[in-house]
């Protein structure tokens, strides 16, 4: 069940809250309390924009226990706009359509569930950036 474990990670999972190092300015996700660049204490919360691009990707056909009914699903390393890499699932996209460099944005989705009486865990996934209709029109108008 591990309810407390998931509860402790709410801010990370729902709002992409990491940390910023006050010494060197490094943006850190996930939070680790010690800056990986300069080893100074880094406990100041920092909320990431959720924007980024695909750095690497794969499709999982043989999932671990707890993820069976999501398979096959797409996973990726996403390079966040603020710098760090994050490991996450991609959503709203077929594996064959994913490319390195594809712009993506964070959304909150169901990550796993542990059966009828188990916990449902929500968290971040990333989806291709949806270009608003207005900006598509503006772009085509300028051509």
């Amino acid at each position, binding site marked *: 069940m591990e309810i407390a474990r998931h509860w402790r990670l709410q801010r990370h999972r729902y709002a992409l809250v990491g940390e910023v190092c006050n010494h060197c300015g490094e943006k850190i996700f996930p939070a680790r309390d010690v800056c990986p660049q300069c080893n100074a204490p880094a406990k100041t919360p920092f909320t990431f924009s959720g924007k980024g691009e695909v750095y*690497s990707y794969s499709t999982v056909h043989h*999932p671990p*226990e707890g993820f069976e009914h999501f398979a096959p699903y797409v*996973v990726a390393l996403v390079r966040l706009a603020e710098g760090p890499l994050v490991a996450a699932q991609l959503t709203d996209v077929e594996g064959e359509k994913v490319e390195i460099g594809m712009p993506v944005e964070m959304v909150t989705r169901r990550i796993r569930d542990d059966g009828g009486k188990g916990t449902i865990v929500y968290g971040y996934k990333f989806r291709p950036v949806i270009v608003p209709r207005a900006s598509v029109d503006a772009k085509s108008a300028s051509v």
Partner: protein
Amino acid sequence: MRDVSIIGLGETPVGEHWEKSLKDLAGEAIQNAIKDAQVERVDALYVGNMCSGTLNGQEHLGAFIGDWVGLRGVEAFKIEAACGSGAAALRLGYIAVAGELADFVVVAGVEKMTDRPGDQVTAALAMASDGDFEAQNGLSFVALNALLMRRYMHEYGVHHKDFAPFAINAHKNAVGNPYALFPHAVTAQDFCTAKMIANPVNLLDSSPVCDGAAAVVLCPTALARQFTARPVRIRASAAATDSIAIHDRRDLLGLEGAALSATKAYGQAKVTPKDIDLFELHDAFTIMSVLSLEACGFAERGRGVRLGTEGDITIGGQVPISTMGGLKARGHPVGATGIYQVIEVALQLREQAGANQVRNARLGMAQNVGGSGATVVTTILEAVE
């Protein structure tokens, strides 16, 4: 510090041992090693294992295995460092003998993986990664390697088929190893058409889930000749770590833990990669072979696949790897692998590798990796003249 040598080797065949339990396997390997060394006294037992708690419902393996093999009363611990558990146990055995805290140490590695269904084994292996930020997001261990491989292919413009020689070499060499799980050859065609697990990683990129145990006996080199005509001396033993999660690596494809561990080992042995006659590397996935060869100085960045395509990794090549089948084809019973690797290097140095013998092998290296590079233990071995 005292010089340390290996004086006894014991292994079980790697397989799906439905009729044997964790303790049966460990017991067989340990008794074989003790018999091979002909020692009458054991001062300590270190057992490398990763998954006994999750897959076998048994922890406390030091006392558990010690009791089973007739070593009740002897100091005994389980050592865990994911897939690097075996070599981590060896490192502690080495420290004990080199540091004059024990004279005769048995180091075993054991893993019993086939008692559970595949999804539970996959979940257990994913515990080698960052639980909250990799495994809990559905990233299997294979998926992490797939992310490394995809990025490697992108950065260096290589194709999936370029990795085929690593699987072909491992399988070819397994044919000559009576303890190997897959003693049969595979072709480039087999490699390109194998079942996909996590794109681009397919079945023939990956090492198998299996059972096995292996053990060695260590003692001071000064005493080794009393027990065997062919002791194998540990010239270097070095461990290093990197970030647990691949997303936290400073250099995703650099395998810095492997580089650090190998550099320390070269320094201890006062050798360079050119002096290494064979290299039992951690080929859990073909991409790991390539990254390891680059990190350990056998190839420049982005050029590791060429050692495969140009034949340098074969038994007659510049840097023979996976000479008895490697993790790919001998098999990868995770906590036992580090000991299998060291035994295979020792067999090469004792000129007991049969059809797979590397000619004039004097210096061999084994490198065992925990997780996707977070723990790396490098051991350099030398035949005692």
